[in-house]
């Protein structure tokens, strides 16, 4: 991100310097202003959805849903951290429904939690890819735009959209599995006294080139 930022920023600035330098500051201010109004609308969105999320939490819906999705999340993310898995499960299920307002708080929570776990590199990358390639069952906002513009068949894009978003997600997951290998964790049983202690031994460098 640092490199990309530096390149795009300097090249754009250089171009502006040659063509219309007076637009430089106004472009920055305009961008910042847009982000300020975006943040105001985000406060509204998050207020609505985080309220609901807390109700889900307190009534046990979060637990029930994440129990269903957790096994898949565990396989996909190769992590055993319960709190992270719960946030991931909710992030994925809410994303499927197309409620990105509710998915973001869970996603942020998952990212922060994953950063503290052992397998952070791989799991964070997986979280990034899954959210970036957003698997969505119903493209509600697009259908709404098409209805507003009086399309003859506003819903005929639903099926191709599902196929296309499925492709981007599956491809993303496969590429992540292929190129960003998880740190291999092996479970070794060590006998000590009467107890068997499960100890996770992390082997670094296995599977990396």
């Amino acid at each position, binding site marked *: *991100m640092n490199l990309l*930022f530096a390149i*795009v*920023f300097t*090249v*754009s*600035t250089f171009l502006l310097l040659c063509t219309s330098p007076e637009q430089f500051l106004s*472009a920055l201010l305009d*961008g*910042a202003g*847009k*982000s*300020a109004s*975006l*943040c105001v609308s985000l*406060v509204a969105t*998050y*207020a609505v959805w985080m*309220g*609901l999320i*807390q*109700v889900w939490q*307190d*009534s046990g*819906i979060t637990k029930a849903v994440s129990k269903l999705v957790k096994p898949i999340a565990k396989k996909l993310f190769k992590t055993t951290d319960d709190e992270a898995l719960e946030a991931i499960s909710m992030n994925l299920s809410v994303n499927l*429904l197309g409620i990105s307002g509710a998915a*973001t*708080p869970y*996603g*942020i929570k998952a*990212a922060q939690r994953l950063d503290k776990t052992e397998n952070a*590199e791989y799991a*964070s*990358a997986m979280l*990034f890819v899954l*959210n*970036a390639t*957003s698997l969505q069952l*119903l493209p509600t906002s697009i*259908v*709404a735009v*098409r209805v507003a*513009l009086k*399309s*003859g068949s*506003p819903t*005929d*894009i639903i099926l*191709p*959209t599902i*196929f*296309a*978003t499925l*492709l*981007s997600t599956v*491809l*993303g997951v496969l*590429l*992540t599995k292929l190129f*960003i290998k998880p740190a291999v964790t092996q479970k070794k049983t060590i006998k000590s006294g009467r107890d068997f202690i499960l100890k996770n031994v992390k082997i670094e460098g296995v599977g990396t080139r």
Partner: protein
Amino acid sequence: MNYILSLLIPMIFLFSFLFALSRKVKVYDSFTEGVKGAIPLVLSIFPYIATVAMLSKLFEVSGLESKITSFISPFFRFTGIPEEIASLVLIKPLSGSGSIAVLTQILERYGVDSYAARCACVAYGTADTIFYIGAVYFAGIKRKKLTAAFVISILSYLAAVIFSCFLCRIM
């Protein structure tokens, strides 16, 4: 169909609240507790959103965006992506509000049910605002592999866009 879709969100709220009530949850206390987190969350992501927004505005105003668009549109034609949607394909990973604006423009200019417009709609749904995900979800998190994840996301997105245009031709 659209009517059924519009029922989805109110139903989710209704059932969640009814279920919470049946579990004797104090819904008002619980809801306000959740809302409390909204402002700190937005404050924590603001610097990243602001910077990406400034950058994408600069990218657009400087003409770099249109230069890149005209540079790569022959490649797009080669892969079956109509030139009309090239600007959408470029802006979609950068800006959510920007891409909705460009999408609406395309739909209005070429007709909602035209081939280009349908491609635009399907391509729009293939991925999320990738830069925004990076900036917001991973605000302040420094992990080496996130760059690789970013490249993978962009590649999967482009592949899916090509696939979308192919699907629109046959479906």
